[in-house]
């Protein structure tokens, strides 16, 4: 069905990363021909085998998944230096590398490690980066993602987003015994932690701007309601506080935190079932109605300045995307005109671009549109059921829900559509990814 989603398994990288525990299987499905060649030499590791951790493999996988880098197969390396002084630049240049990363994982005490690494330009021999990151064992993955972030930013000029988190929903089991779980995991799908577990649907996870809490919709009690739950870094379900923030009669849906984290946009219904967008003050729980139209108004997304909302409305027939100022009495402005179905707007972090779901040839796909100018939307994906787009906090990629051989998967595509990879869970259907902040 989604043929493009299963060819082009890039590199022996997956083999190289085999020692890493894999909650997800990652398949690179769209490579980028002009990816920058880089050598990430395996780091020296402490003598104790208990401390072994393959920093270089994780860094290589992050960089490859971004589509911007093509890490060299370590089997082709002629030598494996760990310090800049030991690099024979001519060798690495002959192997067509633009950059080289060398480093060490050093034990500094009980459960205390230091990752030291250096980045060099192979042609100029210039030392571009040198950092050390202290961590405990539990933090080795995060520290390795931070190494990848620093390399990405130095070479690409955009902050890396590898050391961030995603939230998503899984559905396990078959009818009539479906089971829903809300997860938070590392951006590469590792370290998943269950945030909520329910026999009734869970939907629409939305991050607070500080990354400390998630809003989501739960149908527990067979009614839709919105909760806000703590998801601090040291995740411990037992101590996580959870607040019921909206349980009005009817629909309580589509939560979205304002950029300052003080308000929540949401969708509520009147008694006769008309859905409109509201804004709730999270301190006082006071509600302000933003839209007032007999059509379905939903899926609010805040503008960067917190003064407007993007939303989906079918007031003109099919669903289209609109923007409305929060100033009382404002009229919404329609933004999408091509096609009969454009919904679920998400803005890029700099608000230059809008990502949304569009219908094309009977399929649902992720499209982007520049918010300034008059350029036509670009359809980025090729699946039949591509929905729920969410930007990485650096704007370089969009994560979305897709389908592979009848199964719900997460896919990540670069914002320019040139590279793509898929995360296939061991656990059944995955849906509704939401990429957290830095």
């Amino acid at each position, binding site marked *: 069905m989604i043929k493009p989603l299963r060819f082009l398994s890039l590199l022996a990288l997956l083999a190289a990363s085999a020692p890493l525990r894999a909650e997800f299987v990652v398949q690179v499905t769209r490579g980028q021909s002009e990816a920058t060649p880089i050598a990430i030499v395996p780091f020296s590791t402490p003598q104790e085998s208990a401390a072994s951790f393959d920093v270089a493999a994780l860094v290589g996988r992050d960089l490859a998944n971004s589509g911007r880098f093509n890490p060299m197969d370590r089997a082709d390396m002629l030598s494996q230096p760990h310090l800049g002084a030991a690099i024979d630049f001519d060798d690495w240049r002959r192997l067509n590398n633009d950059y080289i990363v060398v480093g060490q994982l050093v034990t500094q005490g009980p459960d205390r490690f230091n990752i030291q690494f250096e980045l060099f330009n192979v042609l100029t021999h210039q030392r571009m980066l040198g950092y050390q990151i202290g961590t405990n064992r539990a933090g080795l993955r995060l520290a390795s993602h931070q190494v990848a972030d620093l390399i990405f930013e130095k070479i690409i000029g955009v902050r890396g987003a590898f050391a961030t988190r995603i939230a998503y929903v899984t559905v396990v089991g*078959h009818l009539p015994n479906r089971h829903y779980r809300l997860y938070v995991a590392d951006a590469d799908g590792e370290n998943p932690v269950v945030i909520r577990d329910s026999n009734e649907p869970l*939907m*629409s996870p939305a991050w607070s701007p500080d990354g400390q809490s998630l809003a989501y919709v739960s149908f527990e009690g067979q009614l839709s309601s919105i909760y806000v739950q703590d998801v601090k870094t040291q995740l411990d379900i037992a101590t996580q506080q959870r607040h019921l923030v909206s349980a009005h009669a009817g629909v309580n849906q589509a939560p979205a935190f304002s950029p300052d984290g003080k308000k929540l946009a949401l969708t509520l219904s009147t008694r006769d079932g008309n859905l409109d967008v509201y804004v709730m003050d999270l301190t006082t729980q006071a509600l302000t109605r933003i839209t007032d139209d007999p059509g379905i108004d*939903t899926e609010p997304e805040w503008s960067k300045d917190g003064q407007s909302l993007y939303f989906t409305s079918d007031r003109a027939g099919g669903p289209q995307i609109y923007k409305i100022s929060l100033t009382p009495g404002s009229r919404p402005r329609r933004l999408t005109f091509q096609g009969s179905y454009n*919904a679920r707007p998400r803005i890029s972090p700099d608000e230059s671009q809008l990502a949304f779901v569009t219908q094309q040839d009977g399929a649902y796909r992720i499209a982007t549109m520049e918010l300034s100018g008059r350029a036509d939307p670009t359809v980025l994906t090729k699946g039949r059921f591509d929905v729920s787009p969410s930007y990485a906090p650096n704007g370089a990629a969009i994560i979305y829900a897709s389908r592979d051989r009848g199964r719900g998967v997460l896919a990540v595509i670069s914002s320019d559509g040139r590279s793509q990879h898929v995360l296939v869970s061991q656990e059944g259907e995955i849906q509704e990814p939401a990429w957290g902040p830095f």
Partner: protein
Amino acid sequence: MKRILCIGMLVCGAVLLAGCPKKPTVSEPSSTTSQIPASSQGGSGAGGASTTVTPFGADESGGGAANANGPLAGRVIYFDFDKAEIKPEFAELITTFAKNLTAHPNLKLRLEGNTDERGTREYNIGLGERRAQAVRRALMLQGVAEGQLTTVSYGAERPAVEGDDEAAWAQNRRVELVYLP
């Protein structure tokens, strides 16, 4: 895994056709008119599996007729794609429910709106709500008190049937009428 899934779906489909209730825990009150016996269309128990198996959605009806044999027959109203209009073939069902509710003012009915999986999840919640409201209005037009009816929209989150073709979708675009205990 894939194989198990397929078998699971086949079994599920067979069970559905054989007339097994989807939610055995929801007990419908003593009302006699609320439930058209599944046995009138096919087997009602484990032994009644000789039901005629017709491919779902193979006709042009958008699912209405195809569901006449289903276990949910008599308490589910099916809709066309992206539509919330109640089709004429469900008028009788509405009347049956309306009569029962007006005769028993203490009865409470929950209208659960659902959509097929296509489109965005939150917009589908809106669509499901619209369908539930269409049924609510139709019941109220026939004299049912507002206080007897509640609605909920599950959008695409609780499909009756798994699958990504029109046969499955037709089964999922529905409002389920569920008496509350």
